[in-house]
């Protein structure tokens, strides 16, 4: 029994950690580049799910065209509503920025609930391979494994971009010092647009990957936003290296508590761990000023 539990903890710490990474990557990116605690981030999950469903259900599009169109809406929403509408205007007035972002999130959530309540039977058929398999004594669904591998792949792409490309270099420079980057000729505004666009990709992919084992409901954005915030705070706001470590750390805490104690307690345990880290290590695990 002990070996089974230990194996389960390892497997699920990896799976859940990778999924949490996918959930939080966009949030960390915005924190790191724009230096904004984006309380409207939860919208991305709701738009991903309900946008896809609306295009499939109302316009009778197939899954892939619906996902493509939803991505367009998602990016337009991030750029026009959040960036142009709020961030650009109220970058210096943080309380207004936070309030407006949160209000937009709530409004979209309630709109989704009004148009497609739970009884509407919303689902996204994104199962890649149905069924389960065993690693040692632990059974795992293929879809969970795919979601975890997708999380790792997307993170790898982001890290590669930041470390190996010119755009990544500029974004890293901006995350260190905006004014110096401007003086060096960086098109800061364009990079902000790019960062906003990039930030919606991981959470959107996340919703598509987890939909077969997670529920799709209008209020799904709130718990996912909480997870993203928790990971980012624990890792060090806006630091991707920190987000990677924090995701797996929270994944481990959740798995450990679930298998050795009771699953109901896992959220509380992760909060306590984060609190303790914040007390003893101010600013989280990687409290740097840069995104990497």
């Amino acid at each position: 029994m002990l070996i089974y539990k230990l194996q389960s903890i390892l497997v699920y710490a990896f799976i859940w950690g990778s999924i949490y990474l996918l959930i939080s990557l966009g949030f960390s990116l915005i924190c790191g580049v724009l230096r904004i605690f984006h309380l409207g981030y939860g919208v991305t999950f709701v738009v991903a799910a309900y946008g896809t469903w609306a295009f499939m259900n109302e316009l009778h599009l197939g899954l892939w065209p619906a996902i493509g169109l939803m991505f367009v809406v998602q990016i337009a929403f991030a750029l026009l509503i959040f960036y142009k509408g709020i961030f650009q205007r109220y970058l210096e007035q943080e309380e207004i920025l936070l309030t407006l972002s949160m209000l937009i999130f709530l409004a979209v959530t309630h709109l989704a609930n009004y148009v497609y309540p739970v009884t509407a039977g919303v689902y996204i058929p994104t199962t890649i391979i149905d069924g389960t398999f065993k690693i040692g004594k632990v059974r795992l669904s293929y879809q969970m494994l795919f979601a975890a591998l997708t999380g790792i792949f997307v993170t790898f792409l982001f890290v590669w971009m930041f470390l190996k490309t010119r755009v990544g270099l500029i974004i890293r420079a901006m995350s260190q010092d905006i004014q110096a980057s401007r003086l060096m000729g960086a098109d800061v505004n364009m990079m902000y647009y790019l960062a906003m666009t990039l930030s919606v990709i991981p959470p959107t992919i996340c919703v598509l990957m987890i939909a077969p084992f997670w529920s799709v409901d209008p209020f799904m954005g709130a718990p996912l936003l909480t997870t993203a915030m928790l990971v980012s705070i624990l890792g060090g706001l806006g630091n991707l290296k920190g987000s990677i470590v924090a995701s797996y750390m929270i994944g481990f805490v959740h798995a450990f508590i679930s298998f050795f104690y009771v699953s109901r307690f896992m959220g509380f345990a992760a909060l306590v761990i984060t609190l303790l880290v914040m007390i003893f290590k101010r600013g989280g695990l990687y409290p740097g000023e840069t995104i990497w």
Partner: protein
Amino acid sequence: MNRWKGKLSGIVVLCFCLVLCTGAMVQAKEPLKIGFMGNLSSAPCLSSRGAAMMAVDEMNAAGGIDGRQVELIVEDTKGEIPKAVEIYKKLVMTDKVTAVVIAEKVEMAVAGMEIGAELFKEYPHIMFSTIGSGDVIWHHVRDNYDKYKFGFQTYYSVSTNYLNIWGKLNAELFTKLAGAKKMALIYEDMEWTKPLRKGLEGVSPPLKDVYKKLGLDVVYETTVSTDQKMFTSVFEEIAAMEADVIDATVGYIDEGALIKQWEQSSSRDLPFFIWGGLAGMPPAWKVTEGKCLGVMVGSSMVRVAISEKTIPFMDNLMTKYKVGPIFGSHTTYDTLYGFKKAVENAGGAGNIDALIKSLEKVEEVAVLGTIGWDPKLHYNLPYPKYITPVVQWQKEGDQGAMKVIFPPEFANSKYMSPKELRK
């Protein structure tokens, strides 16, 4: 002179009689007011409102209650207890309703019951709670009848009867149909499951012990929270403990995620029984992408004629009132018909004490069997009077359908194991 005096007295008496008769006639024509309150942005309350409107429209079309037309006054609590208390006062004191129907969670009805108790002497009325299985309403009636006698509760079952009645029926279902000996119990962390988790002193031991007495060994027991999204560890542990059946006393948690993760776990071949909630609603098949195949659930949303009222109720509610018959609607509709019969048996609604006594004795044909209330405890008469069928998600062509597997007299299919169904 005396002749004139006599004539005058006769005229006065005649006029007096005329005034009295006219008054009585006016009173007879006055509508009987019923207040309805609930959170009108929640699906169960909207469905209950539709059911209440339907009942009132039908009654008025058939001549009303005891010759009086019925007026339904609908109020939105927005799910807030202080607002609910104000609305309750307004309905009783200003609108002077005869009955208040609270179609919202039991906590709201308890708040209404408290304010109702204060107002009762000056404004005698009846209170019905039609959503929620919590035991507080009938505990109040049991512990202080004189103060709370105006309160009645209608639900598919109150928590106590889950222990006393459904525990035994479930055990029968698990042992006879699924051949189970060892079982796993999942509770949700809510007030209504508290008696099931901890038992009720002097009434029943916890559900675990009820099952044990009936020959089922509970090898795994856990409580999940309503905001929980990850249940994989629960199902993996259940499989590791070699349980034969999973009994989930849940109705409010994220059942979409629960079912999807069960179907993708080591427990996927174990019979899985859910007490209520989304799993028992028609959209569950789509929401879970068919992963609910094999799941058993208590559901009143299945098209099976428990009485002659069942199918017309479902059809009319959908077509005329544009709401689905989800939980709360049956109980609200049946409550109003039980109330109607009680008023008529009592000879009117003028004497509330007589009406309470009448409600304690009444029995009326209902959508889900027979509606009536326990004379001492004021919860509605339980199974087999009031029936929630147990259904299993099975296949009908390439779609899923809820098939009744219990009680036997309404069954339209036989239980099949999830493994068999997936073949």
